[in-house]
């Protein structure tokens, strides 16, 4: 079983660092994906994203 937390309207410039922030630390996310998906692992300048973090429960 898992739970999912979504953060809307994350600016492209913040995306990669926030993905790391969600994964690291105590009880960190097991998996973080974005909507729209990143192309070649990089956000597109000027776009905003939804981060979807999945946590084991």
């Amino acid at each position, binding site marked *: *079983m*898992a*739970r*999912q*937390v*979504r*953060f*809307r*309207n*994350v*600016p492209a410039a*913040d995306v990669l660092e*926030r993905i790391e*922030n*969600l*994964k*690291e*630390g*105590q*009880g*960190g*996310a097991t998996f973080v994906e974005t909507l729209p998906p990143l192309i070649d692992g990089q956000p597109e300048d000027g776009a905003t994203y939804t*981060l979807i*973090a*999945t*946590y084991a*429960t």
Partner: protein
Amino acid sequence: MRIVSFVAMAALLAGCQAAGGYPPPGMTRPEALKSVETDSAVGAEAAYDAAADPEVRRQIRNRIVRARLYVADVNYNDFARNLSTEQKAFAVGSDIAVLGLAGAGTLAKSARTATRLAAASSGVLGARSAIDKEIYFDKTLPAIVAQMDASRRTVYATIATGLARSDADYSLLQAKADLETYYIAGTIPGALTAITKEAGKQSAVADQKIERIVEYPYSFGNISKRILKYRKPDDKTVDVGHESAMFAWLHANTNVPTVGECILGACTEAEKAQMAKDLAIP
């Protein structure tokens, strides 16, 4: 001159066909169907109905079913060949040719510039639509054909198992019903139905695994930056002591389970400020 160019371009595109990717079959379709005509025909069932011996009935049943499987395979392979690149290239070329000729007709009937532009415009837009359809078809066709192949193999396994059984356990009537399913499995509507069913199953499984979903607007201001700095003083490594202190504070004062969620927006600004105050976060 423009009309000639327009038509010539359209004809060129219409004739632009790629190789289909299939070698010629050993027999033509009519030859293949002819080779099993006796056993696949409706009349073959009379011998089955007339036979009293179970073993004879089983043999006749198997001969009829195998012949009809072969007919289904020949027809399916012919169908799959026609879905190949050559067919698609022709379809797009034809679309473009029709649009080109229609546009040329409009140009020939009127000398007005506006009409010419409108015709050229509709030709370009139409060609774009045809190419979009082609790209879409090109991307989805392999998945549809793969599903048809997989579904046919599944039904074939049922039929092959049935043919090993006695006539009492697997009658010709049952086999005919399975043959009909075998046919449906090799159609585009059948494949789309199978794909939709599978997607629905996977979605249900995924939904069961995620027990709770919550959503927040992203909020990362100055207090979040201070908390993040406290968490990673050197900007690289999480300070375990600071992390544990914040983790304990969250569990004592909020419903937010982790620090990462809190700093991105799961905590309110007031909660973040209170945590910063209580833990003396600089």
